[in-house]
């Protein structure tokens, strides 16, 4: 019962500030609270996030996220497309990690069809998805550091990200919205030098992570801007549904790749980094370590790519038997779930996408309370949201 009461306290707090119907909050100097609009056209909101901040001087006493500017009705579109036709749409949600989105969707439909992708396809999927995780974290690191005022990491990060995008381009012809996988396996066989390219990238990447850390980890300005900012305790993180690096930085050792392995993750050794205090600095450290671990997974995977077919036996027209499936993967931003209901026809009856960014963004109000306006920028950055996925 104790836990229940505390859970309610969070809602209560958020509820009051969001509706603004409660009594006027008492400000420090007795002055009226100031409502400041931030976004949707603001460089630090990473797209079209609009935040209404209630301020007491420079301190945030409440906030409300206004989302939906990028709503395209993806879930409605899915009901009017065949299973294969919808696959490219999922790339447009988290558009900086399209490969992960595609993996989640393809695996969900495979589960619905009760087929499994062949081992070779699963290993190649794992390699590409881990590269995508590195690319997504690099983009996060560059822009997050830029928001806080460090200009240099952006150029370094984009330099390395470019190498990963080149591998994607060689593999499937696209850099961002890749549509790399197909339901049942892969459409394309790995190109001849894939292993070599991945190996070269991984070898070159290790000293680069050290470069980023040299710039930031011990940097006094970086520490001042991130330590103790946006603290989320493990209990609150779970209550607010936060997943991925946000949850792990709060000290919860949970990663779907380990807890419920998919693709070929059960074959590789890797660690799950966790934080202790759950502040912005911990989330930074967790993501840095995740890049190292992803690199190790890639190196293990290229050593032994099994031979064999790359597609399971699935028909040209997919008609999954009636039923439903919820399949979640560990996307770079957290738990990415697909809940698909089939009524036995060629089109899905319902596709629900559980986006990590949308749910993680919900903890923003909780994290921002009591901080300065400048910290809001750091907190938006540390949540690593992509508005394409928040709004769908």
């Amino acid at each position, binding site marked *: 019962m104790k836990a229940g009461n505390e*859970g309610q306290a969070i809602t209560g707090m958020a509820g009051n500030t969001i509706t603004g119907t409660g009594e006027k909050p008492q400000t420090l100097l007795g002055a009226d609270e100031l409502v400041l609009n931030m976004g949707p056209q603001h460089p630090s909101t990473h797209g079209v996030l609009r935040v209404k901040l209630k301020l007491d001087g420079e301190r945030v006493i409440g906030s409300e996220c206004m989302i939906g500017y990028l709503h395209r009705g993806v879930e*409605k579109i899915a009901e009017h497309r065949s299973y294969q036709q919808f696959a490219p749409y999922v790339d447009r949600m988290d558009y900086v990690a399209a490969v992960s989105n595609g993996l989640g969707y393809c695996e969900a439909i495979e589960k619905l069809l009760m087929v499994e992708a062949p081992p070779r396809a699963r290993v190649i999927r794992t390699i590409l998805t881990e590269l995508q995780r590195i690319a997504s974290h690099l983009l996060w690191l560059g822009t997050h550091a830029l928001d806080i005022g460090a200009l240099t990491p952006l150029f370094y990060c984009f330099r390395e990200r470019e190498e990963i995008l080149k591998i994607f381009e060689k593999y499937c012809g696209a850099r961002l919205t890749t549509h790399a996988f197909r339901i049942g396996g892969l459409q394309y066989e790995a190109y001849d030098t894939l292993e070599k390219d991945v190996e070269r990238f991984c070898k070159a990447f290790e000293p680069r992570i050290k470069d980023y850390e040299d710039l930031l980890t011990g940097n006094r300005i970086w520490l001042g801007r991130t330590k103790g900012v946006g603290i989320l305790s493990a209990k609150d993180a779970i209550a*607010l549904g936060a997943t991925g690096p946000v949850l792990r930085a709060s000290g919860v050792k949970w990663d779907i790749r380990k807890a419920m392995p998919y693709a070929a993750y059960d074959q590789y050794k890797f660690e799950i980094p966790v934080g202790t205090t759950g502040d912005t600095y911990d989330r930074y450290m967790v993501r840095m370590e995740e890049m190292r671990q992803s690199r190790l997974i890639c190196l293990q995977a290229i050593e032994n790519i099994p031979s064999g077919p790359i597609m399971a036996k699935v028909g040209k027209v997919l008609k999954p038997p009636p*039923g439903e499936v919820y399949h979640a993967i560990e996307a770079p931003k957290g738990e990415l*779930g697909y809940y698909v209901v089939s009524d036995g026809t060629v089109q899905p009856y319902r596709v629900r996408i559980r986006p990590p960014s949308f749910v993680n963004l919900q903890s923003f109000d909780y994290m921002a309370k009591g901080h300065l306006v400048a910290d809001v920028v750091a907190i938006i950055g540390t949540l690593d949201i992509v508005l394409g996925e928040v709004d769908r």
Partner: protein
Amino acid sequence: MRAKFGTALVEAIEDRKQAIVTVECGRLGEVAQYLRDEEKFDLLSDLTAVDWPKREKRFDVVLNLYSFAKNERLRVKVRAGDGEQVPSVAGVWPTANWLEREAFDMFGIIFAGHPNLTRILLPDEWQGYPLRKDYDIIEQDTGWVRENLGIESGQ
């Protein structure tokens, strides 16, 4: 669970190795509290709905739960008719706050006891609930073109 809730448990099945239980709509709050405190399903992964317009109670409200202690997922469903109130679980899992707002936005399902049940993705003045099966996209398109461009849509 059956022993505890008896008739409130409408159905319990397994589909493709996933546990799915359907409970009576009115007792969702009670069941949610029990699942979180006693069965340790402390993470609400997802809350959504499915529309079955031909059924008497047209909506399925679907909760996907996860338990860290057991490393298990559980799906809880309730059936609700049009306009029927579904008890909000935002007091049990605060993450349900936005998820229920989205279900309200897209399906028009009313969650009783929700702290702030307003539209979240669509503008407040939006008419209709897009993810309902009778919300026809072609009709929307023709309507918009006629109203805003003054011509007949070519679709």
